[in-house]
C-alpha cells in the first residue's frame, strides 16, 4: 500500500500528493476522488466560489484535517505516518486568520514559527532570530519588527503571518488566502516574493486566491474547485480559461487581450 520513499526522486525532488481524496463539509460533497501531485518548482493557485472547500482542501493537504476518504502523501509517506515535529519542518501552513489575544512584538510573533527547530529548553538560537529577520526583510517588513502586532492594520498583519510561514523554512508552503486584506501593490509584492522563494530551492506553494488574473500571472498551475465534487487541475493557462472558469463560478467570463496582457473579466449580462 505505502509507496516507496524515493518514488519522488524520479519525478524531480520531494512532492506533495493527494490520493483519491474525498472532502465533505456541512453535509455536502466538496471534492470527490481527487488525485494530484504538487511538485517542487510549482506554484498552485486554488480557486473556486465561496464555500467550495478551498480552506478544507488546504487544511487537509497540511494534514491538520482528516479527509472523508483517501489520503495525502509527502515524499511518498502518508501524512499521518510522519512524526509531527519532522512534518512541521517540511510543510508550513498559513491559516486564513489568526487571532491575537495578547500583545507581542512582530519579531516575536514571527519567531514562533521557529518552534519546530527549538532544542534544549526551548529558547531560540541566534540563527532563528536571523531567519525571522530575513523573512521579515523579504516582505519589506523589517521596519515593523519591534511594533506590537495589536497595533498593525489588517494588511500588515496578513504580511506578518506570511513572513511567519516563510520563516518556518519548509519546502511545501500552504497558504489560505494570503492576499486577503492586501492592496494591489502589496499583492503583487507578496506574489513576487513567493515566486522568488519557490524558485530558490525549488519548493512547492499551494495558495488559495480569488483574483484569477493575479493567479494567471504568477502561478504556474491552478486548481479550480466547483464545490460539488469536481476539480480541474493543471498548468494555469489550461485551467483558468473562460470556459472552465465560467462553469465553476456560475457566471460567464470573457478573456480580453491587449498589449500582451490578458485578463478574465465578467461578461456583461444582457438585461
Amino acid at each position, binding site marked *: 500500500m505505502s509507496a516507496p520513499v524515493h518514488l519522488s526522486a524520479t519525478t524531480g525532488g520531494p512532492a506533495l500528493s493527494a490520493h483519491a481524496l474525498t472532502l465533505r463539509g456541512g453535509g455536502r460533497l466538496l471534492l470527490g476522488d481527487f488525485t494530484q501531485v504538487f511538485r517542487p518548482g510549482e506554484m498552485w493557485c486554488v480557486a473556486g466560489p465561496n464555500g467550495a472547500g478551498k480552506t478544507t482542501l488546504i487544511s487537509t493537504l497540511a494534514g491538520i484535517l482528516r479527509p472523508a476518504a483517501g489520503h495525502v502523501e509527502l515524499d511518498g509517506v502518508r501524512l499521518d505516518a510522519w512524526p509531527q515535529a519532522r512534518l512541521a519542518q517540511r510543510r508550513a501552513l498559513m491559516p486564513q486568520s489568526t487571532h491575537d489575544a495578547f500583545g507581542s512584538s512582530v519579531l516575536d510573533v514571527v519567531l514562533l514559527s521557529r518552534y519546530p527547530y527549538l532544542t534544549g*529548553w526551548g529558547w531560540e538560537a541566534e540563527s532563528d532570530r536571523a531567519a525571522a529577520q530575513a523573512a521579515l526583510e523579504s516582505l519589506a517588513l523589517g521596519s515593523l519588527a519591534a511594533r506590537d502586532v495589536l497595533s498593525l492594520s489588517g494588511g500588515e498583519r496578513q504580511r506578518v503571518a506570511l513572513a511567519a510561514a516563510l520563516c518556518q523554512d519548509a519546502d511545501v508552503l500552504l497558504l489560505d488566502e494570503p492576499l486577503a486584506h492586501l492592496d494591489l501593490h502589496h499583492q503583487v509584492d507578496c506574489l513576487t516574493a513567493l515566486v522568488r522563494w519557490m524558485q530558490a530551492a525549488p519548493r512547492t506553494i499551494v495558495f488559495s486566491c480569488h483574483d484569477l488574473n493575479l493567479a494567471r500571472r504568477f502561478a504556474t498551475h491552478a486548481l479550480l474547485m466547483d464545490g460539488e465534487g469536481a476539480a480541474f487541475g493543471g498548468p494555469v493557462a489550461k485551467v483558468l480559461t473562460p470556459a472552465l472558469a465560467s462553469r465553476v463560478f456560475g457566471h460567464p467570463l470573457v478573456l480580453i487581450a491587449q498589449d500582451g496582457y490578458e485578463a478574465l473579466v465578467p461578461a456583461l449580462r444582457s438585461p
Partner: protein
Amino acid sequence: MSGKRAAVIWLALAMCALAVLMAALALGSVQVSPWKVFGALVHAQTEGVTDSSGEIVRTLRLPRAVAGFACGGLLALAGALLQVLLRNPLAEPYVLGVSGGAAAFAVLALAAGAVRWVVDTASFAGALLSIALVLGFARRAFWRGEAQEASPRLLLTGVVLATGWGAVVMLILTLMPDERLRGVLFWLTGDLNGAGDPWPALAALVVALAASVPVAPQLNVLIRGEAFALALGVPAARLRVRIYLVASLAAAVAVTTAGTIGFVGLVVPHALRLICGNDQRMLVPASALAGGTAVMGADLVARTVVAPAQLPIGVVTALVGVPVFLWMLMRGRR
C-alpha cells in the same frame, strides 16, 4: 525575549520573594530582628536556650508564610495557564468553577460542624467534581478547539457552573446556624489563619511547575490558534487538556489550603505580561514567583494592619486587586 532576560526577571522576582519572606518572619506582634530570624531558621533544633521569638518564627510565621507563598504561586500559575487556554487575558483560576465547587462542599462541611481536615477533603472533592463536570460538558471544546475568538463554550460552561455553585453556597448559608457564619465567611474570602501544614501546597506548586514549564514553548504557539499550533507540530488537544488539569488542580489545592483568595490569579500574570512581555516560557515560572510573593505580602498586611485583630487575606488582595485591575482595563482600552 531571550533566556538570559527571563533569567534576570526570575532572579529579581526571587529576591523580592526572599525579602518579603524575611519581613513576614520578622514582623508582627512580636518584632524579631532579621539576624535572629536567620538564627532561628538555621539553628532549628540545636538551640539549647528556649527562645520564644525563635519558636514564633519557626512554628507560627514560617508555616503561614510558606502556605501563603504556595497558594499565591498556585493561583497565579493557574491564572497564567487559563489565560492561555481560553486565549483571554482576563481569565482567572476561578472562572471555570473550580472554587465554586470547592466552596459549596467546604461550606456544607462547615455547616455540619466538621473538623478542619474533613473541610479540606470536602473542598478538594468539590473542586474535583467541578473539574470533571467542566471536562464532561465542554469536551468538544478541548478536542477540536474553537475556531473563533477565545473559547466561548468552555468559558460559558465554567461560568454557568460557577454561578450554580454560588447559588448552592447561598442556600447553605441561609439554612446555617448563625454562630457558624463567621468561620464560613472567613473561609469564603480566603484565610491563611487556619492553614495547617503548608508543605503539601508547596509540593503541589513544584509539581505544577514541573508539569507546565516543559510545555511553555508550546503555549506560546497555542495562543495563536488551533490551525497555527497544529501546523507547527503542537498537539493542541492534548496540550489543552493538560494545562486545564494542571491549572484546575493547582487552583483546587490553593482553595483547599486557604479558601478563595481572589484577584491574585488574574492580576499577577496580567501585570507581568504588561511589564515583562507575553512569553509563556518566562511567564509561567515568573507568575508562580510573583503570585507567591504577592500573597505572602498580602498576608503580612492582613495580620499586622489591625493587629491584634486579623483581616481575611482575600479582603486585602481584593482591595489592592480591584483598582489595579480596573486601571489595567482602562489602560488596555486606549
